[in-house]
């Protein structure tokens, strides 16, 4: 990160002639602009950033951002991101996928990556529905919501990623809304700068398959945490996380004192050189 305060032009992360596969009006358009702006404001060189994703519409994000890309398998963005960070801690590693990929197929990895606490950022596009497979319930779809598969409505309770992350003492837990540009940019920047695992669950409308959680619904059912809120208070955080009558936006929980996973590994005890670069001509 540079010493001057001049941000990069977000356009340096553009992929020329990208054939974008998102529907017009998709919340992903907001998130991609927010991500590029955050990267630009942090003056991150594209060669030093790795975007890791699984599969789904959200997981296509790295396809459209000029940086290193590891587009792996459905549900597996987190194990891949952890390994990349272990091998080269100098890189800025961002795992980015949807709610199905991260909380469903990758649920076990979500739990154990939080336990490990690697210094990575985990951006989850949470549109509460499956988009790419055309409209089935996701782990975060509300009970009772009718979908293209659940004809009589969903009959299980939704997964609460924020509450799970707080319960696991994740070192940084935030929620945003793709329609709130300033907030999302700030939270992404904070998450990248945070030393340790940082989750940002970004609420995002799916304009094609989710007719319940619309832009308007999110505006009406979310609120910004006040400045007086102390995110290091875990009990308070858990209360906020489990109160789903209205969804809090902002940094919900933080534990800045957790040891970072890769820093504790044997090869880095004496020599901080990334394992990836040892023996290479630099």
């Amino acid at each position, binding site marked *: 990160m540079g010493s001057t305060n001049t941000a990069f032009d977000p356009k340096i992360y553009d992929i020329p002639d990208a054939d974008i596969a998102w529907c017009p009006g998709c919340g992903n358009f907001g998130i991609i602009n927010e991500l590029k702006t955050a990267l630009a404001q942090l003056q991150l060189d594209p060669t030093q950033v*790795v975007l890791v994703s699984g599969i789904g519409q959200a997981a296509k994000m790295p396809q459209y951002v000029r940086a290193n890309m590891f587009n792996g398998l459905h549900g*597996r963005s987190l194990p891949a991101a952890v390994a990349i960070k272990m091998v080269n801690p100098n*890189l800025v590693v961002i795992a980015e996928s949807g709610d199905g990929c991260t909380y469903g197929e990758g649920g076990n990895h979500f739990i154990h990556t939080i336990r490990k606490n690697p210094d990575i950022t985990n951006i989850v596009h949470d549109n509460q529905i499956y988009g790419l497979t055309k409209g089935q319930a996701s782990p975060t779809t509300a009970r009772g919501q009718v979908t293209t598969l659940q004809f009589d409505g969903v009959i299980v309770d939704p997964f609460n990623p924020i509450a799970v992350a707080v319960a696991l003492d994740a070192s940084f837990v935030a929620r945003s809304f793709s329609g709130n540009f300033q907030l999302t940019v700030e939270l992404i920047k904070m998450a990248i700068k945070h030393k340790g695992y940082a989750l940002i669950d970004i609420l995002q409308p799916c304009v094609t398959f989710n007719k319940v959680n619309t832009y308007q619904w999110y505006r009406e059912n979310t609120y910004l945490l006040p400045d007086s809120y102390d995110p290091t208070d875990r009990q308070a955080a858990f209360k906020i996380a489990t109160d789903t009558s209205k969804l809090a936006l902002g940094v919900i929980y933080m534990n800045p004192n957790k040891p970072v996973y890769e820093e504790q590994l044997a090869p880095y005890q004496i020599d901080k050189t990334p394992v990836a670069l040892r023996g290479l001509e630099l």
Partner: protein
Amino acid sequence: MEKKSEISIVLSGAAGQGIQAVEHILTRVAKDSGFHVFATKEYMSRVRGGNNSTEIRISSQPVKAYVDRIDILVPLNDNAIERLRPRITEETIILGEKKYVENEKNSIGILLEEIAESFGNKIYENSVAIGILAGIINADEDALVNNIKVYFSKKSEEVIKANVNAALKGYEIGKSLDLRFEITPSNEVKKQYLLNGSEAVAKGAIAGGCNFISSYPMSPATTVFTELSRLSKQYGILVDQAEDEIAAANMAIAAWYAGARAMVSTSGGGFALMTEAISLSGMIETPIVVHLGQRPGPATGLPTRTEQGDLNLVLYAGHGDFPRIIYAPGNLCEAYELSAKAFNMADKYQVPVFILTDQYFLDSFYNVDEMPQVKIEPYIVKTDENYKRYTLTEDGISPRGIPGYGNGLVRVDSDEHDEYGHITESAEVRRKMVEKRLKKMEKIIQDAVPPKLFGSENYKYLIVTWGSTQLIVKEALEKLGNKDVAMLHFSQVYPVPPIAESYLKKAQKVIFLEQNATGQFANLIKLTFDGVDTRRRILKYDGFPFSVEQVMEAISKEVE
């Protein structure tokens, strides 16, 4: 009566009774005395109780294989004899605590507990037993004392001294038994060291530049994981105990992507979960090295036993078409060399590479010389601004960069992709990329490890083996001494080295010997070469390794 230059000792008892301590010390005493040593163990899937046994062969000549024959059986409790009954012959001496052996025909009962107590505690009885066995083989007294001292070095002076004295008392008893075993020592053996299959794979991997392992514990492959973890500080190895095998395999591939040389160590059931990642490796042309220690399936099967039943699994693992390489070392030296080579080949061809072993191979050890020199061949390139990860080349191999090394971007995609790694559905690009990936097979075949012929070049009968059965069949053939029979052993099972065809077609009769129920390698040969008769198969699938005697008998029937 002529003295015997070789002895087969079997220790039998419950888990937790100290078989491992006796094995550990006695094999080192024998090796340090200049005797050739081989040892292998079989055990039940439990932490306490049951019945486990260890076979230790000590000889004037190199010994490297499992035999049924038991010269001396040492039972460590009262039910340790029954399970081994079928292997007890009139020649077998049963030596042990008087109350356990007194009803046996050919037995030597010794008051082990009483002798141990005379040194202060009955727990010294294993040291007495070690001493007796060392006396029987006329081992070097200093080697005995030193190894006892080393083993108990963390105990108090008093305990060390008591164990040494107990062992020396046993040594005296053993010598006085005059059981007519005379093993000739060799100075060369004294300089060698003992190595087991797990250590050979782990040390070979390190020699091949392995600096990352992510795995989930599973018998019998955990020992390789443990060994790399033990050596992680010394060699700078990143070690991750993953939450499941799915994570482990995806991590290993991502680690290669970021610039590591990564492996996973697992068994069949764990590998089944990794198959999606094998397909990912094929698509994104990012390597992975998989060590698969086989055990009998299906499902949980026999968790602590041995089999060669997962060849088909690794051969066909992963959806879609893409190249791969499968090694199956037949001895410790090959395990070391091929484990190192696996990393070089994975890096060179950007494909999954497998090292197939099994429980018998991993848990067996013998004395070895220095391992062969191996070299790390690096293939990573520094990228420039115009770098394309999947540049189309003549041989299908695109120079592989890593993120953060050079000015280029490294973009890999599990979707079908163009040269930049960008998602595409173009039929033309798809065709080119499929052909590019498969094209690598041409060069991979040129790098194939040829099969090794054991025995006469002018064979009529050819025994075909792969993996861990090599040394068992080798000894069986040496003992049969039939000039018409030879063995062809494959340490690379896929792609099948083309040179194999001429060996196979030269034989009047080809006999496949495999530790599985269907002859998985015979079926692969049938698919690979036209006109090789693969119908004759010697198969074993009870979870126990082939013995030299069983192989001799089975081959004798085939060559009558």
